[in-house]
């Protein structure tokens, strides 16, 4: 059996840092997530030092995505604060590249400059990995903006203003941002927990919204949100069936739903869920390892969703996160609830989140 080649994968990530081919255009509105996959990927492979020369540039680039409150009237655009995926509205790069926590551009901020919580989450992760201390993050504005994302009727969260995509994904990213900024005042935890439990399907795992099919992605989001809130206890009555569902998703690699084919990305979504429940020992890890290894592209170095298809940075990153749960020697340890290496997270977060 061949083995997973971390050197080739690191080169794939490094090349991606300099250019991503045209098919990644669909990821443009979530561009910070693409940077996160690459930077966090190098970090997991213990190669974050190759970024040393570019570190400050990447940090500045991430900060250029921050939507700051208006200097004249901070409340004017408070709902839109946070990080955007890309500079769609034509903001001047230099004006973002400063230590200011408010925007003093008279024409800014335009009403169409929209943040998304997934981008804010990824920005905070990238900055953390690169050792930035969030000095230029306007935490107060982000938390105030986050307050507008949760819906009072059922506790669900949306990702952006005016988009209307209320589901477990955005409840998770809102939880992660609250945790990382150490301020939960934007989220009504009790109604969030109610929403999470309402997404539990008859199969014993979570759907994206209430009554949808049980799925690995939202199941991760549910368990990770509860982990970050320190409220995993609410799962106790459902844990037995949840563990059964999770364990049964292993085919060779994991699949994301009953009767679907395995896909390398679920080595993270399902693997992380089991790890947070302290039950990764239920997994046949050699099969996971072999499945991921077989999906690594010989020439390109990246990992694909399944063997025989083209690799991409998302599947590459989620795959090696998956390998970390089985203590793969080439991959750093991670905190599954954040998707961040323990090294980058630091002692404080590890003490709170690590159940090992």
């Amino acid at each position, binding site marked *: 059996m061949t083995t997973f080649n971390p050197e080739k994968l690191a080169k794939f990530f490094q090349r991606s840092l300099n250019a991503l081919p045209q098919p990644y255009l669909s990821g443009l509105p979530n561009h910070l997530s693409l940077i996160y996959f690459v930077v966090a990927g190098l970090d997991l492979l213990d190669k974050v030092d190759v970024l040393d020369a570019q570190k400050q540039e990447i940090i500045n680039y991430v900060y250029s995505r921050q939507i700051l409150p208006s200097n004249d009237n901070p409340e004017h655009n408070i709902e839109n604060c946070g990080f955007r995926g890309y500079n769609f509205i034509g903001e001047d790069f230099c004006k973002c590249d400063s230590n200011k926590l408010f925007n003093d551009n008279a024409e800014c901020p335009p009403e169409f400059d929209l943040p998304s919580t997934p981008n804010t989450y990824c920005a905070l992760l990238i900055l953390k990995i690169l050792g930035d201390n969030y000095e230029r993050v306007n935490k107060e504005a982000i938390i105030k903006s986050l307050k507008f994302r949760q819906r009072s009727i059922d506790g669900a969260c949306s990702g952006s203003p005016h988009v209307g995509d209320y589901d477990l994904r955005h409840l998770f990213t809102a939880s992660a941002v609250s945790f990382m900024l150490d301020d939960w005042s934007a989220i009504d935890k009790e109604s969030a927990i109610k929403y999470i439990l309402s997404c539990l399907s*008859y199969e014993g795992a979570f759907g994206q919204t209430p009554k*949808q099919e049980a799925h690995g992605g939202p199941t991760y989001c549910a368990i990770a949100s509860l982990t970050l809130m320190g409220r995993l206890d609410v799962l106790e009555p459902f844990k037995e069936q949840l563990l059964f569902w999770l364990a*049964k998703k292993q085919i060779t690699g994991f699949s994301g739903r009953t009767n679907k084919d395995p896909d390398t990305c679920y080595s993270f979504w399902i693997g992380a869920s089991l790890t947070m429940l302290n039950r990764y020992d239920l997994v046949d890890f050699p099969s996971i390892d072999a499945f991921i290894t077989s999906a690594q592209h010989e020439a390109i170095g990246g990992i694909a969703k399944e063997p025989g298809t083209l690799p991409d940075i998302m599947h590459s990153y989620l795959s090696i996160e998956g390998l970390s749960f089985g203590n793969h020697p080439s991959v750093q340890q991670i905190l599954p609830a954040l998707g961040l290496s323990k090294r980058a997270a630091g002692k404080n977060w590890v003490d709170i989140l690590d159940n090992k």
Partner: protein
Amino acid sequence: MSSEEESDLYTPYSERPEWSDVTPIPQDDGPHPVCPIMYTDEFKDKMNYFRAILKSKEKSLRVLKLLEDIVQDNPSNYTVWYYRREVLKSIENDTSIEYDIADEMQLLNEMGETDPKNYQIWNHRRFIVEKYIGAASNEGEKLFLSDVLNEDAKNYHAWSHRQWLLKTFQQWQGELEFVNKLLKLDHRNNSAWNHRFFVLLSNNQLPFSKELIDREVEFALGYIKFSPNNESPWSYLRGLFKGQSLLNYQDLLKQLLELKSKYIGCSHVNSIILDFYQEENSKKSLEDSLNICKLLSETIDPIHKKYWEFKYNTIEIKLKSL
């Protein structure tokens, strides 16, 4: 169409006389872009004009056309879709501009077929249906969903849209027949099984009544007997008892034990019998449970060996504490 052919046909906005009054705004990515995406000059050109429009806040037919041009390249762009909704809202009140919302549905149908897993296209669709068409959209929406599910019967977005449609307009008739049709095409389609459960929940509360359970058990067993290793009907069967005890259904246990002796090597029948035994929680039933765990871990279900060993250990502890 190859990108070369496309370039031949594409007239940059800067060369279109009807756009000569607009000054494009280029993107400023600073001196060191990170993970830059190598998109085409055409896309850059369109986005430069989009930026100019956001600044002028123009809301017109030509802007709708520009926005359409952009989402065709980049359908996940939530900012562009949001502005499109703002334009639609604005021209709705402007009698000098005529735009037929049927054209918007046409665009959504085409884009929905070519990119059926894009959140923003579905999201925009929901907005248009809800705001402009209402219950009258029901038939057309169901037709469109049938087309999409015909291509990929497990498309999560399509099922989500169908659930939203049913909940919003409360037109449930024919829904179980629709599920049955899909299950006949592919009995392993777990999304269709989930949808059947969703339909049950529309007019039944959990825990389900005995009558309903009897009917659904028969339905699931029909598929199980057709293909015992299909996990979906087993999962469905187990889910029917949510909120109540399996022990009230001893007839089912009897049937399952018969199936167990027929389906040698079927892990699903063994794991549901295990659930019955565990609930019973007697010395005999727990001892039988241990045997089942052993059978599963050693012979029938080796990939989940560790799970069944874990089950074995927890049941053994229960047994000792009896």
